[in-house]
């Protein structure tokens, strides 16, 4: 049982980092960015490349985030400069990144990293954690990484730049009225969002200790489900939206874990994911309330 809860928390917190990114695009920018299905494994691919070359695992977190941000900028440029519709921009980037991810992983769809260092297993961390805590080590580290990402995001949202980001999804006209380029603001938002998604991919890769090309399939669904559960269950409460998203992600992972626990085979995972998402959508009817300006 304890094993199950820790597993849910580990997965929930990793996907929470990703869901924070999806929260930016879906809730704040109103930009359905499908490229996250590929930026998540992009973070993992960069990480696999770096870890298999014995590079610092913490540096891999940063490099993955940067790679994700670049991918986000790419999606943004396709949308803003080439005037391609938001949904299609994401799909184009998603498809292109698939090849890039394979290349980064040295052409193989699978890279095992069992004998390499990770943020969970290196001399510094191993020295820090006493033996008694070792079974909680992973979940604690994931939680810390997730909290750093969340606190930084919360801080950013309170800055002038953050205000502008919130404004652009709300009403792009006002950003123009403020003599700012609304396209540029959107690109910044996509960069932050995809940076977070790739960071989650990097953490996931280090936790699983392998890279797999298809590990990103369905990421967007998990992200959207987490955001919608979080922001609907805790609607109107004093809880910060980002906190709600984190809890949403954990709740979602718990639902999936329960479904598997009651006997559904793990191979049905994607199907469970899809059905659960549909149920959540029907319950919350979130799409209906969204008014296009």
């Amino acid at each position: 049982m304890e094993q199950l809860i820790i597993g849910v928390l580990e997965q929930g917190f990793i996907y929470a980092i990703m869901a924070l990114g999806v929260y930016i695009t879906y809730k704040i920018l109103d930009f359905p960015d499908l490229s996250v299905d590929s930026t998540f494994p992009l973070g993992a691919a960069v990480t696999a490349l770096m870890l298999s070359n014995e590079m610092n695992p913490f540096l891999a977190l940063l490099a993955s985030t940067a790679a994700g941000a670049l991918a986000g900028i790419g999606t943004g440029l396709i949308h803003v400069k080439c005037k391609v519709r938001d949904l299609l921009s994401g799909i184009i980037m998603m498809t292109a990144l698939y090849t890039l991810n394979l290349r980064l992983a040295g052409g193989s769809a699978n890279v095992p990293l069992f004998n390499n260092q990770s943020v969970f297993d290196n001399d510094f961390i191993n020295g820090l954690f006493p033996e008694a805590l070792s079974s909680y080590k992973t979940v604690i580290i994931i939680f810390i990484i997730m909290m750093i990402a969340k606190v930084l995001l919360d801080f950013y949202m309170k800055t002038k730049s953050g205000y502008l980001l919130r404004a652009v999804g709300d009403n792009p006209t006002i950003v123009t009225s403020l003599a700012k380029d609304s396209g540029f603001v959107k690109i910044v938002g996509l960069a932050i969002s995809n940076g977070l998604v790739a960071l989650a991919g990097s953490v996931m890769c280090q936790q699983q200790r392998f890279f797999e090309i298809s590990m990103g399939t369905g990421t967007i669904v998990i992200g959207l489900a987490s955001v919608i559960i979080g922001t609907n269950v805790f609607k109107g409460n004093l809880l910060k939206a980002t906190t709600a998203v984190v809890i949403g992600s954990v709740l979602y992972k718990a639902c999936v874990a329960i479904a598997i626990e009651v006997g559904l085979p793990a191979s049905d995972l994607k199907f469970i994911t899809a059905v659960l998402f549909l149920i959540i959508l029907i319950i919350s009817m979130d799409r209906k309330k969204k008014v296009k300006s």
Partner: protein
Amino acid sequence: MIELQHIDKYYNIGTVNEVCLFKDFNLTIHDGDFISVIGSNGSGKTSMLNLICGSLEAEAGKIILNGEDITHQKEYVRQRKIGRVYQNPAMGTCPSMTILENMSLADNKGKAYGLQFGTNKKRIDDYREMLSQLGLGLEDMMGSKVGSLSGGQRQAMALLMTTMTPIEFLILDEHTAALDPKTAELIMELTGKVVKEKNLTTIMVTHNLRYAVEYGKRLIMMHQGNAIVDKAGKEKEELDVDALLNQFNQISIETGN
């Protein structure tokens, strides 16, 4: 000063619906002008404002702002000197942000939007003071989302937000059209006050002939992409609603509208 020189504007180019709205359209807006623009639906008032603001590009002609050719300048760059209030109250504010956040956002126009705190605490009292001048009680609900305000309250905020930072030109497109008569009156009074106080060069499109007569130092009547009436100074002062209405009807008869 804004000059529109020899403007041609076509819509739906290359389709069977191609229409020419402006053909060799010229207009000079002098510093300190307060122009009321009237004209029937589809006469090109909004299109003219869009050309000035850069939301629309002309097929030919030049737009000169203070001597500088801005014909191809991006819309957002032009907005440094221009403030615009739209007919739709939702266009001028951010519904999911609070009144305070909206004020902070607008207060920073012309400066960088970097990683400083979005709301400058020292300015909150100033914001409260500005809001209280609207007389709508908004100063007591600065933490409320703007999306929960009525159209009139939002439009008052939009006007305040547009004019709180230094701008030279104020562009108003039927900014009282969506409001009830009493709120419209209030917004018009505020408009007159702020234009005078800040000495803004103003273009105001309106369908309300009384406002067009009462406000502004110059009046333009648009018709099919032409300024068929352009009166300033004493001539403008002598205009009254009946005379304008007559003009309006005459045009309608001529064109069989």
